[in-house]
C-alpha cells in the first residue's frame, strides 16, 4: 500500500506545482497602454555599445518614469535563428535588435514583420545622423534587397576592418617605417618572412574562421570603386567576376597564400585562435575589425598599433546591427523614443569614449589618444564613403559558400580561377533578380 500512497502524494504534489506555476506563467501584460517597453537585444553588456545602452536606459527611465522598461538579453545566433518565428507570434517585443543584410533584415522587412520607419526617420532626423553607406543596410525594398526602399532599421555604431600589428616584431624584422602602398606592404611582409615571423595571423575554418575571407575581400576592395561594390552588394548591375577588381584581388590573394603571408594550416583555425596567435606573439599582424579592439588593448603584452590596408581604394566595414520595430509591436511610440535616445549625443559620446565607433558621436570629446585616432580614422572612411561592407551580404547562403572556398584555397586545393568560376555561378543563381 505504501507504493500507492506515494503515487497519490506524487500526483498531488505535481498538481499543486502545476497550479502555482500556471498562475505565474499566465499573466498577460496587455500591451498598447504605453506603460511598458520591451527591448530585446544581443550586445555584450560589457561592450562599448552595451554600456552606452545602459546609459540610454537611465535617460529613458528619467524621461518616462511611469514606463516599465524590460531590457532583455539574447544571443546573436538565437536572435538570428528565431527572428522570423518570434516576430510572427502574438507576444512580440516593442524594439528588437536584428542583423543587417538581404538574408536576415531583408527577409523580415519583405515579409512585413517589421514596421517601415521612413516617416519616423524624417520626424526625428535620424537620416542626419545615419548617412551615406551607413544607411545602405537600413533600407530594404519590397523584395528585401538592401540599398533602397523604406527604412526598416536604425544602426547605432559602425565597424571597419584593420590590421593590428606588433611593433616589437616589426622592428625585429627591420621594418622602420610603416608601409603606405601595397608594394611597400608586401616588401615589409617579405622582411617578416625572412625573419621567420608569420606576417598575418589568419584562419579559414568553415565555422568561425573568417580572417581569410576578410583578407580576400580586403584585397578586392583595395582595387574597387563605389560603383563596382554597390553593383555587387545591392545586386544592381550584373557582376563579371573575371574582371577587375574581383579577378585581380583573388589572384593577389592566392599569391599571398603561396608566399606564406598568412601562415599555413589555416583550415581548422577560428578567428578566436587567430587572435590568440597574434596576442601570444606568434604572428606580426592580425586582420580583424573593432570587435577585438578592447580585448587587444587589455590583453596585449607588447607595444601595438594598427592601420588599414595600405594603398587601398576602399576598406571593409559597415554599419552595425540595427534597431527595428516589429509590425505587431504594441508600444510603437515608446519604441521610436527609445531608438532616438540611443542616437542622442549623450549616449553616442559614451559609446565613442569606450571605443565603440558611434555614427553620431563627436570624436573631439574622446580624451584617450588611441581611441580618438581609431574613431577619427573611422569617421574619415565614412565621410569618404569608401567602406565596402562584408562580402556575404548579397545572396542567401553566401557565407557558407565563401567560407568553404576560402578553406579550399587556403589548403591549396583550389586555384583563384576555379574559385572565380564557381563564385560567378553561385552569385548569378542566388541573386534572384
Amino acid at each position, binding site marked *: 500500500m505504501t507504493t500507492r500512497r506515494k503515487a497519490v502524494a506524487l500526483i498531488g504534489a505535481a498538481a499543486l506545482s502545476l497550479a502555482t506555476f500556471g498562475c505565474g506563467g499566465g499573466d498577460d501584460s496587455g500591451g498598447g497602454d504605453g506603460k511598458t517597453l520591451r527591448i530585446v537585444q544581443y550586445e*555584450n553588456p*560589457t561592450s562599448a555599445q552595451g554600456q552606452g545602452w545602459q546609459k540610454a536606459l537611465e535617460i529613458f527611465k528619467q524621461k518616462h518614469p511611469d514606463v516599465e522598461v524590460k531590457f532583455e538579453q*539574447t544571443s546573436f545566433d538565437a536572435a538570428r535563428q528565431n527572428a522570423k*518565428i518570434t516576430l510572427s507570434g502574438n507576444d512580440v517585443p516593442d524594439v528588437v535588435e536584428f542583423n543587417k543584410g538581404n538574408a536576415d533584415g531583408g527577409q523580415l522587412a519583405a515579409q512585413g514583420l517589421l514596421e517601415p520607419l521612413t516617416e519616423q526617420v524624417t520626424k526625428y532626423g535620424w537620416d542626419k545622423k545615419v548617412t551615406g553607406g551607413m544607411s545602405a543596410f537600413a533600407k530594404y525594398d519590397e523584395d528585401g534587397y538592401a540599398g533602397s526602399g523604406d527604412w526598416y532599421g536604425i544602426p547605432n555604431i559602425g565597424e571597419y576592418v584593420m590590421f593590428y600589428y606588433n611593433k616589437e616584431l616589426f622592428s625585429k624584422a627591420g621594418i622602420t617605417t610603416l608601409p603606405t602602398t601595397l608594394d611597400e606592404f608586401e616588401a615589409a611582409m617579405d622582411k617578416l618572412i625572412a625573419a621567420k615571423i608569420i606576417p598575418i595571423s589568419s584562419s579559414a575554418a568553415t565555422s568561425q574562421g573568417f580572417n581569410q575571407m576578410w583578407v580576400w575581400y580586403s584585397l578586392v576592395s583595395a582595387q574597387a570603386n563605389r560603383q563596382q561594390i554597390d553593383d555587387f552588394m545591392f545586386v544592381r548591375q550584373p557582376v563579371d567576376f573575371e574582371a577587375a577588381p574581383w579577378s585581380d584581388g583573388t589572384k593577389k590573394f592566392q599569391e599571398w597564400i603561396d608566399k606564406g603571408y598568412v601562415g599555413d594550416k589555416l583550415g581548422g583555425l577560428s578567428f578566436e585562435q587567430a587572435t590568440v*596567435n597574434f596576442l601570444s606573439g606568434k604572428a606580426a599582424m592580425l586582420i580583424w575589425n573593432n570587435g577585438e579592439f578592447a580585448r587587444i588593448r587589455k590583453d596585449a603584452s607588447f607595444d601595438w598599433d594598427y592601420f588599414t590596408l595600405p594603398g587601398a581604394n576602399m576598406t571593409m566595414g559597415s554599419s552595425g546591427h540595427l534597431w527595428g520595430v516589429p509590425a505587431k509591436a504594441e508600444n510603437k511610440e515608446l519604441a521610436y523614443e527609445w531608438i532616438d535616445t540611443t542616437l542622442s549625443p549623450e549616449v553616442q559620446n559614451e559609446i565613442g569614449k569606450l571605443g565603440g565607433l558611434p555614427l553620431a558621436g563627436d570624436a573631439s570629446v574622446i580624451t584617450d589618444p588611441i581611441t580618438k585616432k581609431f574613431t577619427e580614422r573611422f569617421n574619415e572612411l565614412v565621410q569618404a564613403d569608401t567602406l565596402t561592407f562584408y562580402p556575404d551580404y548579397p545572396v542567401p547562403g553566401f557565407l557558407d559558400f565563401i567560407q568553404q572556398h576560402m578553406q579550399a584555397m587556403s589548403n591549396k586545393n583550389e586555384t583563384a580561377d576555379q574559385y572565380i568560376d564557381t563564385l560567378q555561378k553561385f552569385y548569378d543563381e542566388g541573386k534572384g533578380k
Partner: protein
Amino acid sequence: MHALKKHTPMQWVVLGLCGLFAVLMLAPFLLLVLNAFKSGADYSSGGPIAWPKSFTLDAFRDYMSMVDFPRALWNSILISTVVAFAGTGLALISAYAIGIGRVKGSAVILAVLLLATMVPHEALIYPLFYGAQETGTFNTVWSVIIIFTVLQAAFGTYLLSSVMSTVPKELLDAAGIDGAGRWTILWKIILPVLRPTLAVLVVFFFIWTWNEFYIPVVLLADASSQTVPIALSTLRGQHSIDITTLNAGSLLSLLPTLVFFLIFQRTLSHGVTAGSIK
C-alpha cells in the same frame, strides 16, 4: 596458482594504456577547468593549453554579472526533473499497453513513436510554436516541459515495451490466477522488475533535456524563462567571444549534471546490466 601471482608485465602495460585513455577522455574537461580559472590576458598570451600564471575567479565573476545564473539553473532543474519523471511515467503506462497488453498494430504504433524521436526538431518547430501560443504556454517553462515529456516518453515507450515483452508470460499468468487485475500487475509485478531500467531512463531523460537547445531557444524567448544552455549562448557575439567567461559558465553549467550523475551512478551501472542476467 595464477591468481596468486604478482602482476605480469602485460598487466602493467594494460593498466598504463587504461590510464592514458582515461587522461585522453578527461582532457577536454581538464582544459575547461584550466581556462575557467585563467585571466583574459593570460589566455590571450599563452593560448588554451598553457598552464595559468595565476588562478583567478574573474571569469566566474564576469559570468555571474552577465547572466542571471540562479534563475537559469532553477529553470533547467525544474524542466529536466519534471520531464524525467513525467516522461518515464508516461512511457511506463503506454509501454504496458503495447508490450504486455494486446494492442492491434502495436508494431506500427512503435514505428510511429520511433519516427517522432528521429524527426529533426527544426521540422517540428512551427507547429510547436503556434501550439504554445494558442495554449498560452509560450515563454513559460511549461511549453518545453510538455513537449519534452511527450518526446522522451515516445522513446521510452519504444524501449520499455521491448523490455516488457521479455517478462515471462508464466509470471503474468500466475498473477492473473491469483486474482490480480491489470492495475495490480503493473504496480506489483512489472514495476519492480523494471525498476532498474526505469531509473536509467530517468537519468537519461534528465541529462538529455538538460542539454536541449533548439526548441527551448525558440519557445523561451524571455530572459526569465531561459535555461542554462541558452544563458550560456548569450555570451557569444558575432565577432568576439570571451573564452574564459565561456569556460567558467560551461563549468558551472556542467556541475549540476555531474552531481546528478554521481548521485545516480549506482542505479546507472545497475541498469545497464539489468537486462543481461535473469
